[in-house]
């Protein structure tokens, strides 16, 4: 064919991926440009927390320098500016996860608090003794313990959907475990210890088909892949700011409006009320009903800046870059004798968890640290997941948009050094 249409050229050029310039992105993150133990910092602990771009840092500084003030009810100018900026983030987050209404967005501290809120406020009114709550073997402790507490309180039973040797949810078993007693399902969108991306759309449909409500823990998903709660149709979804380049101490809970309306408040205090007398208190509307006390105002506004930063680059470009790195890292790590990757799901986020024969992960972590490489070692707050693989701990390298192939090369060199020391 001698002529090519403009449309097909555009399709094959993949413009967003071509525009992705990791060196330019790295310049946005001041913390990356330092040495640790005399070596250039290689930051591979993003699943624990991510670094913050200059735009987020500037936003935080601007809040405190220019309009720091308490939000809501203030009549003075600074308070109104702070309120406006804070509430604008609700809309930004709504758009980021494609919720229907910004009233479905509740500001909290983090995903842990969000899961606890749902367990505490949705659970007791909707679960009774003998009902079942279904989670999976790959959950973070924060998506296990709140449900255990709820079970203790209500007499409900916790059921666990198993995972296979690759660290993938066994969908058939998940489906079999769902029954008329299953009232609630809670599951990670992306596993923090294994990197597995769960087929959440299907999982949600299956839960709904048996009448259960479902919550997805998106802590590890938000910085890596596009979230669309309307498309997923999940009942609750939670995201934490600090893993998506925003400050610590700010996260959000999405909940379907009707469910949030029915739920009692989480904590009592200011802001969550419409009126208080000693005889009767009238609660505020959703979402304010769940936001007692002065929130992390600057953090929320920083979260807005972070969401904007991610959107400007584009989650498709980010996912594509990270996927390339994951493929490269997986290949390089697997060449190392004695190294076993834990979590080899077909659909995976850029998390590489591994064990090294004869060397404890903490020794790996310390030696890598001496090389300037930051990884996480231990059970990653997912002890049942570790147990599933017959181990107590792994070394975990988790990537973000600013990581490079050079970072992976440094990791591989570091691991080879570990083997040299312990060989």
């Amino acid at each position, binding site marked *: 064919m001698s002529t090519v249409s403009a449309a097909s050229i555009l399709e094959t050029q993949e413009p967003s991926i071509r525009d992705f310039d990791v060196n330019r992105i790295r310049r946005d993150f001041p913390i990356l440009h330092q040495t640790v*133990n005399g070596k250039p910092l290689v930051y591979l602990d993003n699943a624990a927390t991510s670094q913050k771009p200059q735009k987020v840092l500037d936003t935080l500084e601007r809040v405190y320098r220019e309009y720091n003030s308490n939000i809501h009810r203030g009549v003075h100018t600074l308070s109104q500016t702070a309120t406006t900026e804070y509430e604008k983030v609700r809309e930004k987050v709504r758009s980021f996860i494609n919720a229907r209404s910004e009233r479905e967005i509740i500001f909290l501290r983090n995903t842990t608090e969000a899961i606890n809120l749902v367990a505490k406020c949705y659970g007791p009114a909707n679960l009774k003794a003998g009902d079942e709550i279904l989670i999976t073997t790959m959950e973070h402790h924060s998506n296990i313990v709140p449900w255990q507490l709820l079970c203790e309180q209500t007499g409900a039973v916790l059921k666990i959907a198993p995972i296979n040797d690759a660290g993938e949810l066994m969908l058939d078993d998940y489906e079999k475990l769902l029954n008329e007693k299953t009232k609630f399902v809670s599951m990670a969108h992306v596993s923090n210890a294994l990197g597995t991306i769960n087929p959440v759309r299907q999982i949600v449909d299956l839960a709904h088909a048996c009448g259960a409500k479902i919550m997805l823990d998106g802590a590890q998903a938000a910085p890596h892949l596009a979230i669309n709660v309307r498309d997923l149709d999940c009942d609750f979804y939670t995201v934490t700011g600090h893993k998506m380049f925003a400050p610590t101490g700010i996260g959000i809970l999405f909940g379907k409006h009707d469910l949030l309306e029915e739920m009692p408040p989480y904590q009592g205090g200011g802001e969550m009320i419409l009126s208080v007398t000693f005889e009767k208190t009238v609660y505020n509307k959703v979402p304010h009903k769940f936001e007692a006390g002065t929130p992390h105002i600057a953090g929320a506004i920083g979260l807005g800046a972070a969401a904007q930063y991610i959107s400007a680059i584009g989650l498709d470009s980010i996912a594509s870059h990270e996927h390339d790195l994951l493929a490269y890292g997986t290949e390089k790590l697997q060449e190392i004798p004695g190294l076993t990757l834990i979590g080899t799901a077909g659909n995976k986020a850029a998390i590489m968890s591994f064990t090294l024969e004869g*060397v*404890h*992960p*903490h*020794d790996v972590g*310390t*030696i890598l640290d*001496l090389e300037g490489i930051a990884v996480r*070692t*231990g*059970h990653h707050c997912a*002890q049942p997941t*570790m147990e599933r693989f017959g181990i*107590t*701990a792994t070394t975990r390298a988790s990537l973000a948009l600013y990581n490079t192939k050079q970072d992976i090369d440094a990791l591989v060199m570091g691991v080879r050094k570990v083997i040299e*020391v*312990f060989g």
Partner: protein
Amino acid sequence: MDLRELYQELILDHNRNPRNRRHLEKASRIAMGYNPLCGDKVTIELLLDSQGSILDIAFEGSGCAISTASASLMTEAVKGKTPKQIEAIFEKFHSEVTDQPCPKHQDVELGKLVALIGVKKYPARVKCATLAWHTLKAALDQVGETVTTE
């Protein structure tokens, strides 16, 4: 920082070939130790004489090189010692690895345990070096439950 300051040959050797890692058939005291931060577990078994001195000691468990070597070196250091002597060694050792002064036990010799002092530059790893010691203390004090480093 040089990694050989921490991972000295003696430590690597005791990690590869831990001494007294076995089960004591006739233990008079048993204690379990657990470090919730890393999941390291250690069990210490003691055979004491009528005066409370350690006739025999063994450990079992899984952990990093520092915790394994520390448990191994500890078993060698305390065998034949009285509880009072052991307490002095532990106090001295503990001050060294946490980089604190220890005027009370200036005359106590740490011997091979000195190899572990490099850990003081790695605050996150100090508990690896002290887990076995805390567990030994629990066994000597006959504390029934699992001790943790927290």
